[in-house]
């Protein structure tokens, strides 16, 4: 495989005991997980907006371009994303998936108050958090095998002042949207990684 100087991956500095075969298998497995995440995150977003009412559930819903308290913003625009090295991409993914489970948990707690009878929504939010934790674990293994340093753990998530119901609905929307967008990005990134580390 071609050596990319900008690449953070350095086989010589590899600290994990996984063989080339094992790494490739792990990558393939993780790629499959991102396929699942892509599908589930779309369903979750649809289920979420359904319960918040209009305008959230309208197909041309334009969420306000305002930052929601406590939600970290990923800092790489889509075009630059594809130009990154594998290692850098993995780094960003690891950071996102370290934060997402906590955020999804907060949304579930808020929805337990806002929509107490929406058991399917609650179930999907819990499943999403679980899947994100799974992906985070997989990414950690891959990064360890490839000698990529991980990001620092996320700062303590939302604990801020209680927001009003509308802001809670909006915040939850952003989290579900982010979850879906990151699922798409991770699917893309793992696909690229698979071609580089074929079985």
């Amino acid at each position, binding site marked *: 495989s071609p050596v990319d100087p900008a690449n953070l991956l350095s086989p010589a500095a590899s600290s994990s005991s996984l063989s080339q075969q094992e790494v490739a298998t792990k990558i393939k497995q993780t790629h499959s997980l991102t396929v699942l995440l892509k599908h589930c995150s779309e369903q979750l977003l649809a289920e979420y907006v359904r*319960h*918040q*009412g*209009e*305008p*959230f559930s*309208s197909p041309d819903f*334009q*969420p*306000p*371009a*305002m*930052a929601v*308290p406590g939600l*970290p*913003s*990923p*800092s*790489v*625009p*889509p075009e630059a994303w594809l130009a990154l090295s594998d290692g850098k991409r993995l780094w960003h993914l690891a950071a996102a998936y370290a934060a997402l489970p906590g955020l999804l948990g907060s949304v579930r707690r808020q929805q337990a108050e*806002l*929509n*107490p*009878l929406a058991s399917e929504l609650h179930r999907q939010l819990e499943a999403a958090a679980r899947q994100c934790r799974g992906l985070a674990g997989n990414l950690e293994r891959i990064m360890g095998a490839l000698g990529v340093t991980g990001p620092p753990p996320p700062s303590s998530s939302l604990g801020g002042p209680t927001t*009003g*119901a*509308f*802001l809670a*609905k*909006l915040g939850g929307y*952003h989290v579900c949207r982010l979850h879906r*967008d990151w699922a798409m990005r991770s699917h893309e990134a793992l696909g690229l990684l698979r071609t580089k580390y074929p079985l």
Partner: protein
Amino acid sequence: MITFLFLWLCLPRVESLTYPAVISPQDPTLVIGSSLTATCSVNSDLHLKAEDLYWTLNGRRLPPESYKVLNGTTLSVALANLNGSRQQSGDNLVCHSRDGSILAGSCLYVGLPPEKPVNITCWSKNMKDLTCKWAPGTEGETYLHTNYTLKYKLRWYGRDNTCQEYRTAGQYSCHIPKDLALFTPYEIWVEASNRLGVAVSEVVMLDILDVVTTDPPADVTVSRVGDLEDQLSVRWSSPPALKDFLFQAKYQIQYRVEDSAEWKVVDDVGNQTSCRLAGLRPGTVYFVQVRCNPFGIYGSKKAGIWSDWSNPTAASTPRSDRVPGVCDPKSGEQNTTLRRELKQFFGWVKKHAYGCSNLSIKLYDQWRVWLQKSHKTRNQVLPGDKL
């Protein structure tokens, strides 16, 4: 979508947040039919004018006639005769700038206060627990999420307990699994609460021993009485759970012909564990169920609560007519030569042919039932048949 993500991603991380606008009141709760005046105050940094704003409720634009400019940066809206909330998470009242972007929102909770829950009924399974169910007071909707809490206390000890396991026997039910006292009355009631208020049901008073039910009888078998064409013999065993308690069980049997929905009930079965059904139609398949009522627990003269019916058991009568009777314990047996000979044969097989030990006259009877059923279906015209 991509451009939006881009835009959103490029926003700097803000520690202390300044919202574009603020709606007041935030998340009010209102009774159906009431009115509300809300205000939207935009942040002066945004250089938006009150005249440029508009309101929507659940995505629908509100008429400008209901707006009022209060000052350069504040616009109010007057809502009258509000309908019940369209979703339990609240109606979305939103303030927009002229280009349609959302500046702020507030959720309205419009509904009715709850009504007293009614028809509280409880039962105890084998004196080990208590399950209660009730009905909501309102026939229709309250539009607001209503929470139900079942509470109970011993009549003379004063401490309120709250039931924890809900929806065990339908939506409006709760299960108390343990620590229940016998021979002493309980007070039980249900509280319904939503954002608009609380309603408490009437208090029901009961002693666990008065509402005992048990499992249906076990091992229900229905068999022919020799060749008797109008009779079937039903046998069962008493529910094992109550064998430790001093009680008398009453039983009830219900039976019907295969293609009828009408059950016939045999009521005066008493404490026995077998009964003979008579006056039946020959050559007919019957479904039979048995249930149990644990009465006379610890010497009480009161009846308990009937158990569920046992799973239906089927059997069929042989052919020809006879005089009707009910649960007649005395009746002669008439075996045909064939059946008698078969019975002897199977007895011999059981003794002498190893590996054939599950052959018995019962198998022959089951075959006769099957024969009768398949004979019936063969003569039925099925919906897909061409005539």
